[in-house]
């Protein structure tokens, strides 16, 4: 009887190993660079945490959030542009506030509108962590630590389904943009 | 054979097994009574039924058929 049980156990082990080597799907994030009008950083796997939030005279602007409450809190914009692109997609709205440009999208299929991006224009406004246009490049590492990705002097810090893009030229921060990555 | 008839009458008093034939008179032994019948036969005739017999009714449609099955199993 012992011979049989030994045989059975061996065969079972063989079976289990075979089962374990089932095809594991490899995740390939193709690193396609997308131009400005959409989003730049490649689509990181959405981490559990919340998206980036920018504070503009104590109004919380979270990437991907509903625009209406934020717009109500911010009050009237200095400039506004509603851009219905030449096709059937919804409407992109860009608003200018002192030192900041806010970009929103109202999708055509009637799904909820969301905040697409916040770009800082000048040093009159800074990020919650204290970075501003014109700050020395060293501040980035000091305030934000290790970046997730770097392309030609553009540093990306991913958080949730959003990314913070900081551009450096000649050792000085020249562009700071928060983006919601709605396309992945 | 009469021991078998005696057993069948015990279980089904109001059926005359001498002439009864399930193929003509309609099915009688339900699957549950089948269990009872088989265990009784096994005890009284000291034989062992392979369970596969239970599934197919062609062994149990009449007393004669049951007896033939018992004889076959006895001399195995």
């Amino acid at each position, binding site marked *: 009887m012992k011979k049989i049980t030994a045989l059975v156990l061996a065969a079972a082990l063989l079976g289990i190993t075979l089962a374990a080597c089932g095809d594991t799907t490899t995740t390939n994030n193709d690193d396609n660079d997308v131009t400005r009008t959409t989003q730049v950083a490649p689509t990181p796997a959405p981490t559990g945490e919340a998206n980036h939030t920018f504070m503009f005279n104590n109004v919380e602007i979270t990437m991907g959030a509903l625009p209406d409450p934020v717009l109500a809190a911010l009050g009237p914009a200095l400039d506004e542009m509603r851009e219905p692109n030449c096709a059937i997609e919804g409407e992109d709205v860009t608003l200018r506030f002192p030192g900041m440009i806010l970009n929103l999208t109202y999708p055509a299929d009637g799904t909820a509108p969301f905040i697409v991006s916040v770009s800082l224009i000048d040093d009159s406004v800074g990020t919650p962590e204290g970075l501003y246009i014109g700050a020395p490049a060293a501040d980035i590492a000091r305030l934000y630590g290790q970046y997730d990705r770097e392309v030609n002097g553009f540093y990306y810090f991913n958080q949730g389904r959003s990314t913070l893009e900081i551009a450096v030229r000649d050792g000085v921060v020249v562009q700071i943009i928060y983006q919601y990555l709605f396309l992945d | 054979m009469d021991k078998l008839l005696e057993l069948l009458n015990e279980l089904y008093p109001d059926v005359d097994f001498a002439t009864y034939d399930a193929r003509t008179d309609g099915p009688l032994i339900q699957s549950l009574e089948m269990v009872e019948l088989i265990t009784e036969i096994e005890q009284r005739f000291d034989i062992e039924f392979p369970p596969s017999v*239970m599934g197919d009714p062609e062994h149990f449609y009449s007393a004669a058929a049951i007896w033939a099955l018992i004889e076959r199993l006895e001399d195995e």
Partner: protein
Amino acid sequence: MTFISPWFLGGLCVLFVLYYTLPKRAQWPLLLLASLGFYALAGWAALAAMLVTVAASYGIAMHMSKLKIAQKAHVAQHRDSMTRDERKAYNAAQKRRQRGWLIAGLLFNFSLLAAVKIGEALARIDIIPSMIFFVGISYYMFRICGYLIDVFWGKIEVQRNPLKLALFTIFFPYAMIGPISRYHNVADALLNEKRIDWALFGRGLQRMIWGFFKVMVVGFRLLLSINHLRATPGEYSGMFAFFTMLVWGAYLYADFSGAIDISIGIAMCFGIRVEENFISPFRARDIFDYWRRWHITMGTWFRDYVFYPLSVAKFMQKWPTRVKIHIATAVTWFTTGIWHGVAWNFIVWGLSNGVVIMISQELKPLYERFNKRFSFTKTKVYTCFAIVRTFLLLTLIRAFDIYFDVPLTFRHFASFITNPQFGAFFRYFGEHEVWFGLAPLEWLVAALGIAVMIAVPWFRKEEKRRPPAIFWAALVLVIFIFGMYGLGFDMQDFFYMQF
């Protein structure tokens, strides 16, 4: 469901042509090749596990039959020199050895199945809504274990060619979905050489179209609503929960019996008759009748290979018959539940079926006296009452499959009484544009589909009253239009342009 893909259907047409044009002896190898290819789609692990199982079972079956032949030869040779008792003792010893091998085979197969299932569960965290996939890989286990036990019982001749055994185990139409065929029922048809029988081929196509209609027009449409109702189970209690159970019953029947129709239809096109798995189950008068109409081949499998052997087994003989039957029923339904999945809701589902059956068995004599005394039980009204009673009973039992959460299901049962929300339920339809995830028009199509599905068990009818070919052409068109498939699933976001 891999049946619903142009590649599958295209491949099938090619296979039909090859099957009936190639030389006859190439027929069953062709089916085996197709089945192996189809099975590989379920993943290499599943295919490997299955092949190992078939090989092991083949070896064990051959060994058992060798022992049996040696036993018969020995008995025949020493017929006169051995007394009846000696012969009985010898037979018993031989039987024990063969049983040892049988148990080894079964143990090996089930441990392999468990490995594949556990591996599968780990790899895929979210639960697949359609129950069919959940049990897919283990259908072949029924067939191969049934074969092993039949060989042990000497009910069938052992299959000497392992490839033929493999074909029986994973013949692609019933590999994933069933029905769970028995070796002696399908082996000959599977393996013999056939000329094309146009009538059967035609009826096979019709059966497939009927299956696709049930799955794609009714099943998938109801699944949308089920997913909606299941997304927030807490919210939909009382009448809403009951409505969910009704929709679930209709969905499961459409999806499951439709898939079975497709697999039976394909087999018919190859000239192979496979057992029926559903015979208008909503007309069942009692729970026994129900389980002779719903998923028949599973019910009979558990009856023949678990219930009967258990009820006549030696160690059971010390109890009275009534107790034996109850124990056997409980064990049978427990294993049925476990086989569906190692999860509480399936076990509770299995056991509740067992309990109801035990109670009915207990009350059987009472019923019989009641039926004899009151003649009205023969009337049409009473049978309708019995049908409705059985339908409701099974709808409740089936509810355990919906939420995968036993306490929640019981809370819903309680809410039927505590707060049925009748008013809220009927008001819901007035207040909402979309009812439980489906537009009213979609519900209309679903309702018509269900009516046609249940009212027309046409293929039960005799030959002459069959619908003409044009009916089937129209039905295919209906599938193309109202079937739920392709990108069109979420159409509403397609064309909006603001001026």
